[in-house]
């Protein structure tokens, strides 16, 4: 199976790989895994007082499509409000990267990661 050029680009030059300070109360962490293939993804977002995502970092242990999905996601969420970021659908990621049907679960994983990161941030803010 051939990867699309967009997948290859993100795979070879992944954007925003890394971590943010977990002890920072404005940082939310999402950790999700895909039962279909065993790929795991960690996404961290830093949120400003205005509810806008200032920074995003990811680390994905998985296939090229999973890495590309999370890399693209970090590009998309930066500058978005939490509400906007929560609206991102896996189908948009799959479409942008031209993922084949067998790799749709990679985009599902990325959508799960941002939702889980937002949840974590909101939990932290309550405390």
């Amino acid at each position, binding site marked *: 199976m051939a990867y699309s050029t967009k997948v290859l680009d993100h795979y070879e030059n992944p954007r925003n790989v890394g971590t943010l300070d977990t002890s920072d109360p404005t940082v939310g962490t999402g950790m999700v895994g895909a039962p279909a293939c*065993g790929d*795991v993804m960690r996404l961290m977002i830093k949120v400003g007082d205005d509810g806008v995502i200032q920074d995003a970092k990811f680390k994905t242990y998985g296939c090229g499509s999973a890495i590309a999905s999370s890399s693209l996601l970090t590009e998309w969420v930066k500058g978005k409000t939490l509400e906007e970021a929560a609206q991102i659908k896996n189908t948009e990621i799959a479409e942008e990267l031209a993922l084949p049907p067998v790799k749709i679960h990679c985009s599902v994983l990325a959508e799960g990661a941002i939702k889980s990161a937002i949840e974590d941030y909101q939990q932290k803010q309550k405390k």
Partner: protein
Amino acid sequence: MWLWRKFQRLIMPITPNHFELFDLPVTFDINTELLAARYRQIQQVVHPDNFVNASDKERLAALQKTTQVNEAFQILKNPFTRGQYLLELYKIDNETLGVVKGDFLLHQIDLREELESIKQSEQLDALSFFTSRVDRQIQTLVAQINQQFEQQAYQEAKQSLQQLQFFKRLYDEAMDFEI
């Protein structure tokens, strides 16, 4: 003769399930050596070489059977796919398009990070220790899945199978390393 009866059954139009194809009980805890032996026997019978002078119809039937037997063998020999297939037979919803979260996943990410740092440090001892640790966890999980299928606890078996997939992936990553 067992093989001949087997062959007659094999060319019957009704498709048996993968277990029946190898005359094995429909259960998670199968004898994998017996599976491999029966697989080889059937492959000998349906091998294309035996159908050089056969009609097109028979040749096609033999070819289809070869494909089916190959696929069934691949599915049954691997505990993960065997379990998935059993759930399918029991009509348990086994949608894998969701995401896994929680403590189990936290632990998996820790293990992935540990493996990554071992790989970077190129410590072979640490790597083989890590691999055998993961292997033990896989064995434990497989034993647990076996018990869950025996007790017909299919939802629990489904959960454990998902966990097995993560450990298998981790194991493959650990094995896939050359210095």
